[in-house]
């Protein structure tokens, strides 16, 4: 996750071109070992067990290792050893840009120092980004203090959305707090409960088509009804998982049917938050609002 945040910083600073950044991302991803593969390598899991855990990941808001422990396939100690091995064998974006010759070592060092300084992140927050912790990322980049006691609920919601974009769209999203609002199609869904929660995704047609195509696995080449419905269904499934998570905490929410509109996000409440999400193919704005 740090790779994505640092990568977009390099892009904004003009230190890398768009093509160079995505080439470096591709190189970094190509050598990133998965925990499941490492577990097979180590003789801890069979391929069938790994496939079963992958399958369960579609229905449970949990990481691979957490589910493997629940299923009794791995012990906590075995998982920690695998995660350590994963870190050791992971190629960082920094290494990728050096290997490709896009930056010199001294340019890289200067850029890293500038990122640490300008991002205002604490060492704990930087560590969280390195370890792929979406909850901490949400707290580092978004200020929900206006939501008062319900801020934790919103952080939980945003972290879940970030995880599900990764899980169902195959994209590691980053939060880009300074990005201007995008205009285009709105896919929205409300949840009623102790405090009503309004949610929505806004994106232009290009992002809509790409997000829909990746999520649905269907042949989608234009912003037609199927494309819009696919993004609405993604929001619906994300929100369904949120409702299940909340129910486990004894907070009951009722989902309302999703709606699709060309209008900007509008909720009949004061506490509206826009969270710009950067994806490799463009920006989507996530909206959350409380009543």
């Amino acid at each position, binding site marked *: 996750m740090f790779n994505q945040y640092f990568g977009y910083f390099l892009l904004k600073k003009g230190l890398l071109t768009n093509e160079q950044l995505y080439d470096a991302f591709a190189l970094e991803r190509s050598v990133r070992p998965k925990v499941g593969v490492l577990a097979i390598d180590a003789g801890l899991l069979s391929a069938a067990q790994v496939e079963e855990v992958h399958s369960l990941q*579609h229905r449970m808001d949990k990481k691979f290792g957490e589910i493997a422990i629940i299923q009794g396939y791995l012990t906590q100690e075995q998982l920690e050893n695998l995660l350590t091995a994963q870190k050791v064998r992971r190629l960082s974006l920094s290494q990728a840009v050096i290997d490709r010759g896009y930056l010199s070592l001294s340019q890289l060092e200067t850029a890293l120092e500038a990122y640490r300084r300008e991002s205002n992140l604490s060492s704990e927050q930087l560590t969280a980004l390195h370890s792929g912790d979406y909850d901490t990322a949400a707290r580092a980049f978004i200020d929900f203090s206006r939501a008062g006691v319900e801020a934790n609920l919103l952080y939980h919601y945003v972290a879940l959305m970030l995880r599900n974009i990764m899980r169902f769209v195959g994209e590691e999203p980053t939060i880009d707090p300074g990005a201007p609002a995008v205009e285009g199609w709105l896919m929205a869904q409300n949840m009623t409960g102790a405090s009503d929660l309004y949610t929505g995704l806004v994106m232009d047609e290009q992002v809509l088509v790409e997000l829909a195509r990746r999520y649905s696995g269907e042949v989608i080449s234009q912003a037609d009804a199927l494309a819009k*419905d696919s993004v609405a269904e993604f929001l619906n499934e994300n929100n369904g998982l949120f409702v299940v998570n909340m129910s486990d905490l004894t907070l009951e929410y009722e989902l309302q049917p999703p709606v699709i509109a060309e209008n900007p996000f509008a909720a009949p409440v004061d506490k509206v938050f826009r969270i710009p999400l950067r994806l490799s193919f463009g920006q989507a704005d996530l909206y959350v609002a409380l009543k």
Partner: protein
Amino acid sequence: MAAKELSVLICDDSMLIRKKMRDLLEANDYQVLEAQNGLEGVEVYRQTKPAVVFMDIVMPQSDGLQALKQIKQFDPQAKVIMLSSTGTATKLVEALKSGAVDFIQKPYEKDHILTALAKASQ
């Protein structure tokens, strides 16, 4: 009964889900009927009496739990499988008490759909 003789009703407001379910079921020789909300689902059921229904819960006009109850009132032998993103314990209990034969949470696995369908249509 061979799969190709069985008709299955997919009641879901999502065009994507209806398409993906139709592709899956037709590839496995089932006849597929569609409805976009609970009201339509009850009406299609009354007219066609499909062997099995896959019923979403969160839908406009009439939700899936209401539709389930109406279908079971019309036909106590109806086989209705809930297919929903809201798989909370409350919804699960309400659906099973109302006569649903199974409950699958979205996002679903294809194998899970086919297994539940085979079991329900026995």
